[in-house]
């Protein structure tokens, strides 16, 4: 069928998904054995039944829907703002060395400052309402996205621009019809990667100051030693991230069919 010695070889899709299923089943089995077998106290590791009960209760009471909706709004607001700001700036940085010189060193400096460290400042400046949470997400993702978008733009083949020049294109036309089109798939990919980070920063922001939201509920559950809720929300956050990622990948394949197995030149 297959062998582990097949170093860096492709495997059939069926084999691939079988490995996925076996690994998942293994983790689930381990969880069941540890909890139902009574090897671990429920406070540290709740059983699947505990998590299920907590989930149904939160869903039926409407608490989950409220947390979920609130968190989605925050991510959406902060992340959309980051997209709107970072794409034009990244395009300018990638196309004009002078703008790169003015912005890049500063961003390279800021990007290594951990976002949670900004939160006290943000609370000081913007308070603790919705806007401040979006601001955390915005700062966390926009800085990275500007740099990543500019990298994507810079990687557009200089030969493409030369071709357009010899056909009589103006710089504005090259920017719009060549550089923009060529870097779109890369920019969508940058968005995909940073949406994952946006969720991370959301939880960080909610853990610190909020009265609703996925991160807030996790902290509250911790205070009440209600580990089942923590587990349920962790699974939700993981599924949400994975779902967004898959949605991005699928729409990217749909929108840019030409990127598949393009052989260059």
């Amino acid at each position, binding site marked *: 069928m297959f062998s582990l010695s097949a170093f860096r070889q492709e495997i059939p899709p069926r084999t691939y998904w079988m490995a996925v299923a076996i690994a998942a089943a293994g983790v689930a089995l381990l969880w069941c054995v540890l909890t139902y077998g009574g090897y671990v106290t429920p406070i540290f590791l709740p059983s699947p039944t505990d998590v299920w009960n907590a989930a149904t209760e939160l869903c039926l009471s409407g608490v989950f829907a409220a947390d979920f909706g609130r968190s989605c709004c925050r991510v959406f607001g902060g992340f959309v703002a980051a997209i709107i700001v970072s794409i034009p700036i990244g395009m300018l940085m990638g196309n004009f060395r002078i703008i790169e010189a003015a912005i890049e060193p500063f961003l390279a400096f800021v990007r290594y400052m951990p976002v949670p460290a900004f939160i006290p400042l943000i609370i000081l400046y913007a308070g603790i309402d919705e806007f401040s949470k979006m601001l955390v997400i915005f700062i966390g993702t926009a800085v990275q996205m500007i740099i990543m978008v500019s990298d994507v733009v810079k990687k557009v*083949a200089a030969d493409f621009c030369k*071709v357009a020049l*010899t*056909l*009589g294109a103006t710089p504005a036309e090259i920017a719009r019809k060549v550089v923009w089109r060529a870097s*779109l798939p890369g920019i969508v990919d940058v968005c995909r990667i940073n949406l994952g980070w946006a969720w991370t920063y959301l939880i960080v922001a909610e853990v610190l100051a909020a009265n609703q939201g996925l991160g807030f509920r996790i902290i509250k559950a911790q205070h009440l030693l209600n580990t089942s809720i923590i587990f349920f929300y962790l699974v939700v956050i993981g599924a949400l991230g994975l779902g967004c990622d898959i949605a991005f990948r699928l729409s990217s394949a749909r929108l840019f069919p030409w990127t598949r197995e*393009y052989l260059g*030149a």
Partner: protein
Amino acid sequence: MLLMIETLTKSYPSRDGQSLALAEINFGIEEGEFVSLVGPSGCGKSTILTLAAGLIPPSTGRITLDGSTVGRAGADRGMVFQQANLFPWLTVFENVTFGLTLKANRVSRNDERVLLAQADSLLQAVGLAVFRDHYPRQLSGGMRQRAALVRALVTRPRILLMDEPFGALDAQTREEMQELLMHLCRRQGTTVLFVTHDVEEAVLLSDRVLVMQAHPGTIIAEVPVSLERPRHLDMRADPIFVELRAHIFDLLHHRIRKDVSQMVVSNGTAEAENRLRQA
């Protein structure tokens, strides 16, 4: 003269001042003429093309097209590169008509219809009509280069600049492309300035071959090709062809031998031997 190149030089800043890539280039091309530049790598033949295209400015000298100095790159000088560089996000037809979507080439609705129809007829002529709505990734290397050729012709340039356009293709595809180019030039009456390091290709396609040498790049000889037109690949066995090819080889090799003998005196033998091996 359609294209005139006068006392053209190009130098680049280097560690020890300026290094001269091209020294005193003078030549002209008549309307409808096919002229090739051949020479060893590093002789600056591609640089001449890039200068004529307006992608880089000359250090001194002048390039004129129809009597007026050429400025930046424009659609009046079409260019075909060694790589097809088709835009992967556009279909073949969208690629070849890309030039028509630019402000510089804007024409009336009627003329546009004519040009679009002409693009289709050119695609037909190069055998790509069936692949009109395919993406570049679905095409072979030769097909991509044919599309690149059509793209350069659609905006009706006064002169076509070709920079080793068939250099990246396999031998058989290259011969097909040579025949195709001869056919297209005859059909369109295109003026071509062609850069290649393949002497056979230069003789087969050209009305005149300009032989270059390197360090610094200069034109050392002009060889008119008296073979009749239309040309075809079989002419490579023609005595005139064989003689012209040998003559150009001699011109190229003589220079190299002379370079080597000079080097033996100045730089010792190691570099000279290296040079001989390359030749």
